[in-house]
């Protein structure tokens, strides 16, 4: 006996007591494989996201800088009055500016030959900016003012690498010899790159004036549209789902309504555009191209999304909470509004924000109510005007730019996507903060 204990005991098995048979091994392998698939799927998704993000940022960042001509300019009262008498006033301003620049360059003793035409080719459409400045600041007349005005799109392309000496063909837009002048002007600091505030704050511009194009006005348009969508679809959607979920009797009629709401969520958005055109513009005579109509159309599109998600979150509130409220004597309405709704709020907010995000990126319905195209009215002059004056929306603006002949608009379309994503991110952050506030645990 003792001998037996004294003998070194058999080494203890390291593995568990369960000896794995072939079937268990197979099951475990299957699980491992499945995990690998899942991980691959996530990695692939991430990779796509990274590729997308990198390409958006890389193509879009140039839109935030622009090439400007930095020159001191004096406009006298007489010149101002004479220009204002013309039909094509902005052209008169830009001619004055070109003459001034030519004088300055001649005086500075530049070694390169140039003429007024060459300067004109280097400049973008500067007349509009000049006229706007002097109309707003009459005190600046007769005084030297430092201007940073947009260079032409091809000069801009030369700085950003779109146009090179090898690919440039002489045309009335830009001659190869003009690039020597550009290089010389860059050396003395007259032509330089600067942050493109116009892009962030401005409105759309004509196809020959990419330097003056901005997305700011359409951000405002999108903002007013989102206000309309939020103000209309949230109360209507929540009221409808509370009624359907908590009060409505279960019968054929409510079944029919439910089925239809689910169907409505799957209707292509262009259909809502056609509906909007027929009802809001042709029948109700609301203004064309207005964010109000855009918002109404998008409300129709967003409602089903909000109703479905609100009903789901109302359903997920445990029945015990309703029962408890009813048990201590609350009315049905009190139970819903004091207990169920606050608990469902985070879910409702998530649904709303998904609906709004969808609406924000929608172009198709706007196509038919006149918000896609050249809409460049600038900023609305008040809250009501913001809803009713013609304006574009961000996705519509991006679409419009992408279709233009000049490549620099294509770059602006990418830049617009960055602004759109930033807007979306802000919306989501606000939603997350609100959701945190409303979140309750039980």
């Amino acid at each position, binding site marked *: 006996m003792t001998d037996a204990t004294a003998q070194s005991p058999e080494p203890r098995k390291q593995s568990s007591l369960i000896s794995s048979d072939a079937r268990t091994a197979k099951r475990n392998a299957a699980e491992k494989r499945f995990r690998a698939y899942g991980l691959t799927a996530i990695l692939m998704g991430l990779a796509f996201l990274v590729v997308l993000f990198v390409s958006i940022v890389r193509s879009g960042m140039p839109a935030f800088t622009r090439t400007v001509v930095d020159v001191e300019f004096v406009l006298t009262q007489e010149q101002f009055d004479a220009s204002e008498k*013309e*039909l*094509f*006033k*902005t*052209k008169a301003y830009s001619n004055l500016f070109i003459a001034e620049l030519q004088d300055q360059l001649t005086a500075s003793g530049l070694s390169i030959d140039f003429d007024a035409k060459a300067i004109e080719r280097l400049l973008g459409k500067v*007349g*509009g900016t000049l*006229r*706007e400045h002097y109309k707003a600041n009459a005190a600046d007349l007769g005084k030297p003012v430092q201007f940073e005005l947009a260079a032409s799109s091809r000069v801009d392309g030369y700085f950003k690498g779109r*146009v090179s000496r090898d*690919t*440039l*063909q002489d*045309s*009335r*837009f830009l001659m190869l010899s003009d690039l020597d002048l550009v290089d010389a002007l860059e050396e003395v600091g007259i032509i330089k790159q600067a942050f493109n505030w116009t892009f962030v704050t401005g*409105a759309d*511009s*004509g*196809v*020959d*004036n990419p330097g*003056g194009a901005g997305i700011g006005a359409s951000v405002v348009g999108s903002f007013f549209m989102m206000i*309309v969508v939020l*103000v*209309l679809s*949230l*109360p*209507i959607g929540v009221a409808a789902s509370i009624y359907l979920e908590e009060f409505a009797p279960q019968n054929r009629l409510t079944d029919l309504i439910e089925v239809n709401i689910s169907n409505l969520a799957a209707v292509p958005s262009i259909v809502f555009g056609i509906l909007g055109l027929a009802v809001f*513009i*042709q029948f*109700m*005579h*609301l*203004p*064309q*191209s*207005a964010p*109000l109509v855009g918002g109404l159309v998008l409300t129709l599109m967003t409602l089903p999304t909000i109703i479905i998600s609100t009903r789901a979150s109302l359903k997920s509130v445990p029945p015990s909470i309703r029962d408890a409220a009813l048990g201590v004597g609350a009315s049905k309405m009190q139970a819903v*509004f004091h207990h169920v709704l606050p608990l469902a709020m985070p879910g409702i907010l998530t649904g709303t924000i998904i609906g709004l995000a969808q609406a924000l990126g929608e172009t198709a319905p706007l196509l038919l109510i*006149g918000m*896609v*195209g*050249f*809409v*460049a*009215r*600038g900023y609305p002059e008040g809250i*009501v005007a913001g*809803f*009713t*004056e*013609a304006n574009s929306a961000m996705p519509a603006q991006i679409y419009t730019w*992408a*279709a*233009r*002949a*000049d*490549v620099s608009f294509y770059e602006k379309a990418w830049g617009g996507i960055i602004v759109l994503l930033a807007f979306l991110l802000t919306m989501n952050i606000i939603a997350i903060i609100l959701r945190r506030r409303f979140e309750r645990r039980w």
Partner: protein
Amino acid sequence: MSFVKLTASALAIATVSATAAAARDNVQVAGSSTVLPYASIVAELFGDNTDFPTPVVESGGSSAGLKRFCEGVGENTIDVANASRAIREKEIKACAENGVTEIIEVRIGYDGIVFASDINGFNFEFTPSDWFNALAPKILVDGQLVDNPNTTWDQVNDAFPAQPIAAFIPGTKHGTREVFEEKVIAAGCEATGAFEAMQAAGMSEDDAEDACLAVRTDGLSVDIDGDYTETLARIQANKDGIGVFGLAFYENNTDKLQVATMSGVVPTTETIAEGVYPVSRPLFFYVKKAHIGVIPGLKEFAQFFVADEIAGGEGPLAQYGLVADPELAATQEAVDGEVVMGKDM
């Protein structure tokens, strides 16, 4: 919470009803995507140079624009339709049925239609016959009308390389398509003798003319319903492709495209103005006279558009690629006098 929402929605409804009565203060334009660039240039300048708000210009094609134009009179309809072709009898009739009886036709200038391919490809020199033999559903081979057997360009013309035929032409809702059919395909139909052969085969003259406009539908010719940017994207994806563009679009993309000559003429604003380059067409916009005086700035916009400073040879439109109309003065007079169509006929 619910009270706040209630007030908010009440406010929204109030806004809706308030604006229903408010008048539109900007000119509303829609139509041809060929005219759109010019119209947008003018719209921006109009906003910059006058006290009127910048007009809204939508795209969509000549036919779509004219259809909207003819929907009726009133603030909820557009004021101006852009078109890259003249309005048709059928459309004038449709307009009249909806109460749009007085239409002012304004010709703004001419635009060239060019054939362009990838910059690194073969430099084509086309004739209308080449295009007919490449794109028509039935062509003349050895005196017989047969289903088009050509699939590569060298079968069409010995001077061309063995490059597969892949044509990207404007869709039927574009006015450009009509010009392409009439000035290229139909011209080729007559030049190759197919027109005569069709008549000899028992077709009436009208039927033969219609048959001459047809384009093969076996996939070698692709209709592009979008803008020229889409055509360009297709050519960049398929280097063998040859696309139909407006001259201004090509001139903005000379780093990616090379232009083909037509009957030996290189398309430029000069050759189009002189009438030497065969494939060009006038561009128009149509103004609803009933809206003049109702929509602020409508007449001023039309006058501004055709002013010498804008649409003339030195103006921004010519700078962008429009071929100025030599008879601009007559157009200006017609706009000033609000001369409507059909009255002088």
